[in-house]
């Protein structure tokens, strides 16, 4: 696989593919940096702590039954399974999938402006993140 465009990402929430409602998506893998600087250190010393990954998305809202609004609004305070595939299609070693459990900490059912489509910009904390190659 070579450099690829980021416009074919598959975004699957539970069993629903919502890619056509998503304009941007990013999975941010991150661990906390735990300071272990001791008295005799001359520079700050750190080790990796626990993982604090998150997923960010910009989603065009739709109130149709079983569409994006109900998917997220009905699960506020609960966890949702979300799966991302870099390029829609078969999952392989060069096109791995990322499955995770996301706590729905926020949702924006109303986002009005005079000159743009209703858009929800959300960031959810991620747990149980797994990467698969098949």
């Amino acid at each position, binding site marked *: 696989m070579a450099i690829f465009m980021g*416009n*074919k*990402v*598959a*975004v699957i929430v539970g069993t629903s593919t919502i*890619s*056509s*409602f*998503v*304009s941007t*998506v990013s999975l941010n893998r991150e661990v906390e940096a735990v300071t272990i600087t001791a008295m005799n250190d001359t520079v700050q010393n750190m080790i990796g702590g626990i993982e604090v990954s998150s997923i960010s998305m910009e989603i*065009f809202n739709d109130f149709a039954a079983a569409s994006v609004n109900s998917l997220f609004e009905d699960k506020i305070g609960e966890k949702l399974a979300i799966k991302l595939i870099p390029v*829609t299609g078969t999952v392989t070693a060069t096109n791995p999938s990322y499955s995770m459990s996301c706590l729905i900490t926020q949702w924006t059912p109303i986002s009005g402006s005079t*000159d743009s*489509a209703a858009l929800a910009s959300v960031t959810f904390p991620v747990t149980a993140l797994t990467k698969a190659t098949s």
Partner: protein
Amino acid sequence: MIPSTVRTNLKTALTAITGLRVMDYVPDSTNVPTNNAFAVIGQLSMNYDYTLNRGFDSATCNIIVMVGRMSEKDGQSRLDGLLSSSGSTSIKAAIEADKTLSGAVQTLRVVSASPGTITSASIDYLSYQYSVELIG
């Protein structure tokens, strides 16, 4: 979004305005009757990949509306009615009456209308160019 369907359905939406002659293609020549108006659905300017995985695209469509000769008071009055944001002669209201264009797009908005003139057969016609944003 299928451009030909969008243009056809824009034409259908505009024909709700009494006396407005609408073409969903750019004509070779114009013949604007006195006290009447004439609209041409222009070409679509496409912006692909509005959402992921070939979900939706966005597009801008220009619609040119013209009325009688530049010196005619009736022509200017006619354009005022078309320019209004509401009412039975409003271009914006007619197009936005069904924001999906019978399912051809997800949504649309008539963004702007700019005045100008169009010269045809050495005659200057009053005109407005409307810009319509579409997502679908």
